[in-house]
């Protein structure tokens, strides 16, 4: 019976501070200072991150937006001006095409590759994955833009959305495979074996059993791919010449006044429209797929 001594020890320790009130109060005072300091620090950090967002929320509705955040003189003129820009809305559609196409390619091929790598014993598998992951950060990076441009030129993929999608997919695939393989590894093989005994073909097993079970993983990778392409500037900037094909990240770069100054009215309005689809996607995906996993395996 160890409960006995423990219950008697409880009141003894809680009674301790009473006779030594002096040091206890000093400690409380010092504690208050520490608390104030901590909250001040948190507030500063919070302000650092919140102010740009606040600017994004107010500047588009301001008649004369500046680089600082202030109460706006409310107007919707900025949106009207943006609609008059021939490329603005079209570029958002281009962004959706590029990121959607890349996400589809990445999810499809990463799922197939991750399943194979997870279930089939390939010699040197881990080294292969690690190598790919290491190199992938270079592939779509600045360092390889010259050879990539050369490659796209030879393959006649300059000024082609497909070219941009292929190159971005290539850069994202290794990391996507890595993430999805982890999901595949954590689903027990007995599900698939069970389906096999019932006579399911490999295609049926992948389609009916494996993919539905790693759906949260697929959603994660898709969202991550979309967000990556949405924010990518360099690849579409270099590979697409026709401004009608340019995505929002590139068009953003063109929003200047005649005097060469950044057009803050258009820029802030466009930024708001530019960020909305991604925010909506996150909300939708997390509510639709979430990170649920209904257990069918008794643990």
């Amino acid at each position, binding site marked *: 019976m160890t409960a006995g001594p423990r219950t008697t020890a409880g009141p003894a320790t809680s009674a301790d501070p009473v006779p030594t009130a002096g040091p206890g109060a000093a400690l409380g005072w010092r504690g208050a200072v520490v608390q104030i300091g901590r909250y001040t620090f948190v507030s500063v950090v919070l302000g650092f991150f919140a102010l740009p967002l606040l600017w994004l929320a107010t500047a588009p509705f301001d008649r004369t937006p500046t680089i600082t955040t202030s109460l706006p003189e409310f107007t919707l003129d900025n949106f009207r001006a943006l609609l008059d820009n021939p490329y603005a809305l079209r570029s958002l559609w281009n962004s959706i095409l590029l990121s959607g196409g890349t996400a589809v390619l990445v999810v499809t091929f990463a799922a197939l590759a991750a399943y194979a790598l997870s279930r089939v014993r390939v010699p040197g598998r881990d080294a292969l994955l690690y190598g790919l992951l290491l190199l992938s950060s270079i592939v779509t990076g600045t360092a390889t833009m010259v050879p990539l441009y050369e490659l796209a030129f030879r393959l006649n993929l300059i000024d082609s959305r497909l070219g941009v999608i292929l190159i971005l997919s290539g850069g994202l695939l290794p990391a996507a495979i890595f993430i999805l393989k982890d999901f595949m590894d954590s689903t*027990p093989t*007995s*599900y698939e*074996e*069970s*389906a*096999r*005994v*019932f*006579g*399911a073909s490999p295609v*049926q097993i992948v389609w*009916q*059993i494996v993919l*539905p*079970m790693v*759906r949260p993983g697929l959603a994660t990778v898709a969202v991550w791919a979309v967000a990556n392409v949405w924010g990518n500037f360099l690849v579409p900037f270099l590979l697409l010449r026709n401004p009608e094909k340019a995505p929002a990240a590139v068009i953003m770069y063109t929003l200047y006044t005649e005097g060469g100054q950044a057009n803050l009215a258009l820029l802030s309005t466009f930024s708001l429209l530019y960020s909305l689809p991604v925010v909506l996607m996150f909300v939708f995906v997390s509510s639709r797929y979430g990170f649920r*996993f*209904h*257990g*069918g*395996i*008794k*643990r």
Partner: protein
Amino acid sequence: MAAITLRRLGKVYPGGVRALDGLDLSIADGEFFALLGPSGCGKTTLLRTIAGLEVATEGAVQIGDRDVTNLQPGRRDVAMVFQDYALFPHMTVEENIGYPLRIKKLPRSARRDKAAETAAELGLTGLLDRRPGQLSGGQQQRVALARAMACHPQVFLLDEPLSNLDARLRLEARTFLKRLQRELGVTCVFVTHDQAEALALADRIAVMEGGRIRQVGTPVEVFRRPANTFVAGFIGSTPMNLLDAEVAGDAVVVAGTRLPLPEPARAVVADGDRVVYGVRPEYLDLHTAPLDDALSGRVVVVENLGSSSLVSLDLPGGDGVAGVGLQVVVPEGREPELGSTGWVVPRAGRSLLYRDGELLGADGGGVVGSGVVGAGATGGGVVGGPA
């Protein structure tokens, strides 16, 4: 419904691990058959080889009249219930039960009817719209059984069917499983490491060790006349007492005491043979008063088993060496005092003699030493692996 015949079945994993070693086994049509053994003995590999999830490296598997050795699992007409049940988490109970029919391309309405019908047989009617994660362990098991039943297989394969249930539910599920098998009349092979489960459920048991079958028989045969000391030690909730002994005329000398020579062994032993005397704790009677021709020893431990007690005695070494332990099961109210001396008499016809680990004088004409074991009561000749 079909019989299963295994011929010279062997499985060597890449890397040289020999999981199955030339097995010969016949499982009769409609039989409830247990594969029993300690972990790593190859019992699960054997089950998976019958299912087709493992490919035999030698020998043949026959189900009914068909040689299925090289057939895909889906073409063997078997159903398997996995240890973890493997219910698809993204499907409802109804979709899970109907999944084998979905593979066979039955229309949705037919699948729904069949699922409802099967679920009703197993008392799952109210649960059809739930997901596996919302079911208790016992319910999950019944859904897994229903899914296996829905495709009307010739053979049921169960991998450790009761191991994932808690103790009380396990007894319930055991009775349920046995009744279900009787009603369906389907050939059923299950794997277990629990000898009590095998004894309770199976019509016949194959006891395995190191990729080989050490004995095949009905629960009564395996329990009363273990073919070798491995089976003797493995079967029974308390292991068999195995004591070094020596044959002396028409008696056998155990720890300095002359005991009657077991009848079937009489013809195959000679005076002075070194043997092992085996007798189950349940087949020993403990007396507190001195008796002639009884093993006597000091009571060192008394363990309560509920309606009986397990008493451990220290027998003095017969030739002056250290003492040996002996365990006796005594009925309620007959427990001896700790430290007192007890006299133990084996019941007639219940003791066995082993030489080199093999039973001497097996019944049914077969000589166990050569590795041939008598056929079980439900039919099907069986040859054990070479010893």
